[in-house]
């Protein structure tokens, strides 16, 4: 039997760099302890406390915590030839990409394994195992990058790190310890996959998967608290003096919105990366059986990515609304100020995600002999989705020269200008989501013939549901968007979202009842898809990566010249908002680095399956 790459490594006793993970976790713990012991050792001059602070005091009136330090340019150590901010920016982003991937994969591996247990179809179990195999190498890279990020922060931003580790000392300590639990769960889950088979043992294995997810999610929630504290500090007074209430600091205003957004986004992202892996394996497959297997794997990965992508814009709106609610200034900087143009790029990338996901589904209909019944409808779906995409990224104002302004007759285009405001975009994205769901319904039906007596009525119900939902979305977008005031415009986005959800859920329920016990047109031909469909999976992974990098920069960048908003000012030479082009270039470099590392991971999986027996090298 061909053993997977890491099983081969373990068997040969050559696990080597794999043991770096606990070592790195230990180094992180030591790093945190060390900075706590000599907080000012990195800076040339003592750091002055903020004025007028009422420090939290112990029983003998000795202050327990000081205010946030007020820094000068000299408080930021320099390493010749290295820009500290860009270094931290890239390493943090790379760490986050890998972390998102390794946290997401066990979520859907757990679900796929459970499906396999329920259906007793071993293909699901094999696919779940292959998914977790891909994430194992990425897990090591996540830990290495996490260690690098911790050292980078200690080196380039020692006072910020000390301040944060004073407030979050408990959570940082347990965060580091939790890595042992995470590693233990992951290794037993992965290496014990074939060992823990059978009626009882499989349940033990599934429980381990649940534990792995629980620990992974807890790790992410803890790290989220540190970054959201920097945006919406809590548990401190106006001078940054910590009250001693660690839970208040963790449970800050933006913690839960980020938690929700990241869980959903990670699933979509993890799905897209394993989809790219399946596409890579599909394109390099040498026989029909392998092609069929990786086609099926790619389809499932895409399904996971799209299932999480559909609710993602809503989680994003919730986060943005909460940012506005916390600080209007931050909200306006985010979407009405310097970062607004990056949202146009975001819109293009989200549109690309929807288009490539739909294109993949349309190509996938080629697997079915019954798809010819629906092929004619694809062009209409494509036209509507492209139309919505164009509205989605139409800018409100343009960067124009004087001549261009004169030619346009003002800052807004006569016809396209009204499409630049949020009600038009909300309407467009809801339509894109609805028609992507419709694409999926067609795909799902392509190889089936319903046998229930109420097929006609079911179809009519679905058509009217989509029609009524669409009319309601247009009514809400047009009436409240263009004939009322801002309060109504914002409020109308909620019934718009709910209309979309109602259509998705209700049509899904009708469809599942209607196609229960349906006949197959012919056996599905896995592997019968054009190569272009696999490039759509690559596009999905690259777009997701770029999008996360860009939006991550925006989220962090809206703090502007603050390390911790309104509490601890950034006085480093880099305390300015870079130009959009510069920021986009840094994000693009990060994306290229990440994709190169991911290709390395994919390549490793290919190398592990190759075996050479050179003649004359070994003694007979």
């Amino acid at each position, binding site marked *: 039997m061909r053993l997977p790459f890491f099983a081969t490594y373990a068997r040969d006793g050559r696990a080597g760099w794999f043991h770096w993970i606990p070592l790195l976790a230990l180094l992180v713990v030591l790093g945190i302890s060390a900075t706590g012991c000599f907080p000012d050792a990195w800076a040339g001059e003592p750091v002055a406390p903020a004025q007028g602070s009422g420090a939290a005091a112990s029983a003998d009136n000795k202050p327990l915590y000081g205010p946030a330090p007020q820094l000068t340019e000299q408080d930021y150590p320099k390493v010749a030839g290295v820009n500290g901010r860009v270094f931290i920016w890239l390493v943090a982003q790379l760490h986050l990409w890998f972390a998102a991937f390794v946290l997401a994969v066990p979520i859907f591996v757990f679900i796929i394994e459970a499906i396999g247990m329920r259906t007793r179809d071993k293909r699901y179990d094999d696919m779940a195992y292959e998914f977790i195999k891909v994430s194992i190498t990425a897990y090591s890279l996540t830990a290495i990058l996490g260690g690098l990020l911790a050292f980078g922060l200690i080196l380039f931003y020692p006072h910020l790190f000390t301040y944060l580790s004073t407030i979050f000392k408990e959570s940082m300590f347990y965060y580091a310890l939790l890595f042992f639990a995470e590693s233990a769960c992951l290794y037993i889950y992965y290496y014990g996959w074939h060992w823990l088979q059978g009626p009882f043992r499989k349940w033990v294995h599934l429980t381990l998967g649940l534990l792995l997810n629980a620990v992974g999610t807890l790790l992410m929630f803890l790290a989220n608290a540190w970054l959201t504290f920097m945006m919406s500090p809590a548990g401190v007074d106006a001078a940054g003096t910590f009250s001693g209430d660690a839970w208040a600091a963790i449970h800050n205003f933006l913690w839960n919105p980020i938690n929700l957004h990241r869980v959903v986004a990670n699933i979509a992202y993890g799905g897209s990366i394993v989809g790219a892996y399946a596409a890579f394996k599909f394109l390099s497959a040498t026989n029909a059986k392998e092609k069929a297997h990786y086609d099926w794997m790619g389809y499932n990965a895409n399904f996971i990515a799209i299932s999480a992508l559909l609710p993602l814009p809503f989680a994003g709106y919730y986060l943005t609304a909460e940012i506005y609610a916390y600080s209007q200034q931050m909200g306006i900087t985010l979407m009405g100020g310097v970062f607004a143009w990056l949202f146009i790029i975001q819109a293009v990338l989200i549109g690309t995600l929807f288009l490539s996901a739909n294109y993949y589904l349309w190509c996938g209909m080629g697997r079915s002999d019954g798809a010819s019944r629906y092929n004619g409808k694809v062009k209409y779906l494509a036209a509507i989705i492209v139309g919505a995409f164009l509205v989605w990224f139409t800018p409100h104002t343009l960067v124009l020269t004087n001549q261009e302004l004169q030619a346009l007759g003002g800052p807004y285009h006569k016809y396209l200008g009204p499409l630049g405001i949020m009600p038009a975009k909300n309407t467009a994205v809801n339509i894109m989501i609805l028609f992507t769901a419709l694409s999926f319904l067609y795909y799902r039906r392509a190889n089936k013939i319903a046998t229930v007596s109420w097929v*006609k*009525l079911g179809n009519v119900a679905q058509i009217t*549901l989509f029609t009524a939902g669409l009319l*309601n979305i247009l009514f809400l977008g047009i009436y409240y968007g263009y004939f009322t005031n801002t*309060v109504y415009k914002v*409020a109308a986005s909620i019934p718009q979202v709910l*209309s979309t959800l109602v259509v998705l859920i209700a049509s899904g329920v009708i469809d599942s009842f209607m196609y229960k016990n349906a006949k197959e047109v012919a056996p599905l031909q896995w592997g019968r898809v054009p190569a272009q469909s696999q490039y759509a999976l690559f596009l999905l992974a690259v777009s997701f990566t770029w999008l996360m990098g860009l939006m991550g920069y925006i989220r962090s960048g809206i703090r502007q010249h603050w390390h911790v908003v309104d509490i601890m000012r950034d006085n480093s030479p880099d305390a300015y908002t870079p130009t959009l082009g510069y920021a986009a270039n840094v994000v693009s470099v990060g994306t290229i680095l990440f994709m190169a590392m991911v290709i390395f991971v994919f390549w490793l999986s290919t190398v592990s399956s190759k075996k050479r027996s050179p003649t004359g090298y070994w003694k007979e």
Partner: protein
Amino acid sequence: MEALIDKLKDNTPLAFVTTLAVSLLAFLLLDFVMMKLQGLSLVFHH
């Protein structure tokens, strides 16, 4: 109820009009409730 469903099963245009009307009313009710929950009326008054 069953008689109505049987009637709708055999008459596609009638089924379409009926379900469309019911769906539109349901969505209008959803809009009304959601706007009301936010302290707003369904119709905007200048």
